[in-house]
């Protein structure tokens, strides 16, 4: 049996990584709700966020905050590009959703290859945003980066909720998620809303990647695992609201890190996938089904 200290420590770690899954999950939800598309290239945004931030930091010598913001904007731009160049033409030709989803998978693999050719295949990392740490509470160590993840995560979810509930564009995006035909009939440019959803979703993924890289590493291949875990978190959250997706992420993160202390690191994914199957079997609409599906 692991000690109490180990358990608390793993809880802390789990919340940290879970928040990252949560951000990726929100990215999945934003696109899915606006269009019905499950964007399997979601993980690639996480990877690009970290890779770009690293490049801006080390090759261009920019401060981390500037690198982080620039990298987020760049990745959002790539999200827009993917939407305009590939998704939208398919959408206009009324391609079946599964074909579009397959295309997003191809985009993920394609971007990974481009990253290998341009930035290389070596893993890399950069220092935490705030040096020093970890914060010691008795025997429990909390790295400062976790506070960055917590703070930025909370801020983004808050901003997103405000955006979806209070702004004209946010409401229009929600309208698209409920009934795209009705939205178009009221003059809402649905395709432009899909572009916005890709930009938002890519920015969220990038932010997740930028925030998590100092505590781990990033490489061309990290998109897959982040994508899958974010997807599981989105399913746990019911593909609905941003807070539900975030809770889904934390739930998954905590269970995974619990599995590591109880059974060893090799069980992390087995447990994640088991949780996915259990949720799909018993709560097919997510753990929060029945709640209003807004934001």
């Amino acid at each position, binding site marked *: 049996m692991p000690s109490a200290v180990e358990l608390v420590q793993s809880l802390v770690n789990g919340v940290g990584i879970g928040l990252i899954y949560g951000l990726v999950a929100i990215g999945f939800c934003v696109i899915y709700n606006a269009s019905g598309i499950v964007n399997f290239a979601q993980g690639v945004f996480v990877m690009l966020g970290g890779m770009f931030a690293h490049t801006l930091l080390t090759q261009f010598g920019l401060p981390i905050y500037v690198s982080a913001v620039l990298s987020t904007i760049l990745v959002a731009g790539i999200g827009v590009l993917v939407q305009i160049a590939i998704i939208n033409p398919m959408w206009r030709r009324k391609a079946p959703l599964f074909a579009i989803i397959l295309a997003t998978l191809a985009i993920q693999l394609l971007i990974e290859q481009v990253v290998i050719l341009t930035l290389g295949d070596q893993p890399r990392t950069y220092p935490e945003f705030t040096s020093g740490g970890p914060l010691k509470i008795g025997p429990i160590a909390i790295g400062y980066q976790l506070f960055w993840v917590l703070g930025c995560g909370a801020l983004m979810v808050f901003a997103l909720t405000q955006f979806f509930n209070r702004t004209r564009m946010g*409401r229009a995006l929600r309208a698209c998620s409920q*009934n795209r035909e*009705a939205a178009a*009939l*009221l*003059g*809402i440019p*649905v395709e432009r809303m899909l572009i916005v959803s890709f930009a938002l979703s890519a920015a969220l993924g990038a932010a997740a990647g930028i925030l998590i890289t100092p505590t781990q590493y990033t490489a061309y291949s990290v998109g897959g695992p982040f994508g899958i875990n974010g997807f599981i978190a989105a399913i746990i959250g019911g593909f609905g609201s941003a807070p539900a997706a975030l809770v889904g992420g934390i739930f998954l993160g905590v269970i995974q890190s619990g599995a590591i202390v109880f059974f060893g690191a090799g069980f992390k994914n087995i447990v994640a996938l088991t949780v996915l199957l259990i949720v799909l079997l018993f709560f097919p609409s997510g753990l929060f089904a029945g709640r*209003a599906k807004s934001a």
Partner: protein
Amino acid sequence: MTAMADITPLITVRDLTARYGHIEALRSTALHVAPGEFVTILGPNGAGKTTLLRAITRLIASTGQIVFNGRDVTHLRTHELAGLGIIMVQEGRGLFGDMSVRENLQLGAYKLSGPQAHSERQLEKVFSLFPRLRERIDQTASSMSGGEQQMLAVGRALMADPKLLILDEPSLGLAPRVASEILSTLGALNKEGLGILLVEQKAPLALKLAQRVYILASGSVRAELPTQEIESHHDLARYYFT
């Protein structure tokens, strides 16, 4: 084309044809609505009424021509047509079910990005037509009764400041009293000058309100009649079943 010739119609549809796969659900259909006119389309189930309205609003692809206010709008998309003032209340209402009455109405005014004052005025107008919506303002759309939902659908469309209001069977599934309440409201709006194109199966009231009727069967217009010429329902039945 007698009295009509000297007025530019609000909307003219020519030669509209739409297919589902190999099935031609709409065959070279033509119709027009004059400014301030109330036009009703009648026809049996499966006649192609919904298909016609969806083709006009570009929710489905079709061939043919559509002219709105003298401008060829054939190649515009649904949201662009809405921007010009062609607003449709869909069959089944098309409400944003998880959103509140307020949000549904706000979205109705989406294209009026300009002065807030205008949408406030529209809102007051919608509330005066359907006071029940004011009472339900924070309720989610899906939690309302069928009649209230239809009122919201019409109210939301009015928020968009339509020049031509298209409605696909707004009385479907409603009690006769509620249905006639909603249809009478349409009549009142028409008196104020709003052009209306209504698909309806509950013929009597729709006929009383309309100035002209098209009868659609098997995907094409069987007859076009001024309503005063329809003396009895036997007249209509003749068109339905031939």
